[in-house]
């Protein structure tokens, strides 16, 4: 976990520093109209700081014990057991995608598409949730 959160922290710090430097230089050179870039940089910094926070909390929650994939000497036996549930096939993602695409057409040709797409999307989400509920933990 250590490398992961350090990488994200590094990206976040770089973006924050760039935002500060850019803001200072823009201010010094008198380009008051340029607010978009500074805003985007600050939000980028915040996004990665948030991700860093999540990762570091996970790290502390594990009491800093490295996972098998963080240990240089781990063997396959250390990773034995259930990794997770990986579904073989599901029609619902395609249904959700169809709903989203038809709904997006509503932005071009009017709100009726949005309603049709929305109904398909919600139906597919219901099917998706039912499928997930039926699965073993």
């Amino acid at each position, binding site marked *: 976990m250590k490398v992961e959160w350090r990488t994200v922290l590094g990206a976040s710090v770089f973006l924050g520093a760039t935002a500060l430097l850019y803001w200072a230089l823009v201010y010094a050179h008198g380009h008051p109209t340029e607010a978009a870039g500074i805003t985007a940089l600050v939000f980028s910094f915040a996004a990665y700081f948030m991700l860093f926070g999540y990762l570091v909390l996970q790290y502390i929650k594990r009491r800093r014990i490295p996972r098998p994939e963080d240990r240089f000497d781990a063997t396959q036996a250390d990773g034995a057991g259930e990794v997770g549930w990986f579904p073989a*096939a*599901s029609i619902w993602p395609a249904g959700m995608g169809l709903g989203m*695409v038809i709904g997006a057409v509503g932005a071009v040709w009017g709100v009726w598409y949005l309603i049709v797409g929305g109904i398909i999307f919600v139906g597919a989400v219901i099917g998706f949730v039912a499928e997930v509920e039926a699965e073993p933990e």
Partner: protein
Amino acid sequence: MTVIQEPPGREYRPAEPQLFEIVPGPRPHGLVKYLTSTDHKQIGINYMVTAFIGFLFAGLLAEGIRTQLIVPNNNFVTENVFNQLFTMHGTIMLFVFLGPFGFAGLGNYFVPLMIGAPDMAFPRFNALSYWIYLGGFILMSAGFLTNNGAANFGWFGYAPLTSAIHSPGPGADLWIVGIALTGFSGIFTAVNIISTIFTLRAPGMVMFRMPIFVWNQMVTMFLILLAFPVLTAAMALLWIDRHLNGRFYDQTHGGQPILWQNLFWFFGHPEVYILALPYFGVVTEVLATNSKKPVFGYKGMIGATLSIGALSMGVWAHHMYTTGAVLLPFFAALSLLIAVPTGIKFFNWIGTMWRGTITLNTAMLYSIGFLTMFLFGGITGVMLAQPVLDFQLHNTYFVVGHFHYVMFGGSTFAGFAAIYHWFPKITGRKLHEGWGKLSFAIMYIGFNLTFFPMHPLGLRGMPRRIETYNAHMGWNFLNLLSSVGAYVLAMGVLITVWNIFRSYRKGEIAGDNPWDGQTLEWACSSPPPDHNFESLPPIRSERPVWDANHPDQLTEVGHR
């Protein structure tokens, strides 16, 4: 339980515990499989095939552009159609082919294989991202079928050309919606691949043992997470301007057209690296495999990738020097700085080949072609990063030439290297080497014939995106050369298309590890079974398969 044939010479197979439970149940085939599969390999193939269709379609549009420009005062297409051609050529190449082929197609297929994962972290989410990508592709292309035609304001859609007054009709709206959908698809894929890399690595596969390809994919995904939301926001504002009488980009009512440029390029420059970094990873893997050596300067390579990613977030306005509204020294300095990590990568690529046992197969040829062409494009990029020169060359064919050297000579050549390198893993059959080498030779010649003349054309003042020109401008011969080159290039591409069709059915059976590969994807059968691995070789360096197959030449682990 799938039965896997035991390949010869693998002592590490027996007595390893099963990594995961294989889900019982019916395995669909054909169209149903295409519609319902949540397997990362099937989705990766879907992405690659769709993206390649996009490549052929956008390539056809490019042939239209070059045919119109082959002689002065040509009337092959009207002005409006010409504008649609270059707009949709750029849009489809960038949003449908180059990005998704690299980060979604190759990323989906090979990231889980290379880190020893059974699948992606969110398989169904992964399928959803493919479907909205496909929908985006169809919607943006559907513009050609509408009355006013497709979007016709250039792929970066500068305000106020995109306003409801200058671009009426559904073509522009379809462009907005299509890009927004492919953008969402990119964000979903990014979340998925980052989660996969962070949580599903095999035991012993520490971060600093992951192949460079995986590191590059990870940095690409970080860039997508920052860049695509900004683009989607810019598209939403544009839509509000067009349909709800918004004034965001309308100068006559207090809006700012330059706001669009800032938002678009805040996406647009990281996007260029989103289109390049996965292919850097491809080239690294191909060069290392075919030189029979570990990657030279492994950690330096990772550091270079991370610095390219970081720096690319602070250079967006180098596309906007001539607006006079940006801070020239800041953007020029950061843009020039990117040359440093890219240079490190070049030295490391050469260092990887240095004194290696080099096999010059087709993938290797494409990778070496990539090195030469991308270097050229990179150097013209450094030239353009300097404001003094950019003021002269902005909006000329010099920029078009530079961009195509980076995106075609660079990324697309590496994409072809990936096709030749990993086709055996995906299908179990090798592509024909002879046709492949012929395809490479023709593409290499055609490519340079097409895009090199664009540099002198730009220096002679030919602006980009003009639909015709006068005979006395001194541009005739170079344009003729460029157009002939475009036909040669298309021929080279078609040979590879034919090679794929031919080899898919009757290519030479490849076996599991045809190139004596180094990374984990060569440890499973070709094509890989459901959920990839029955068992894994011990992971003690960044090339576990090489260590398992060559116990006498173990990788030195000096870079902890």
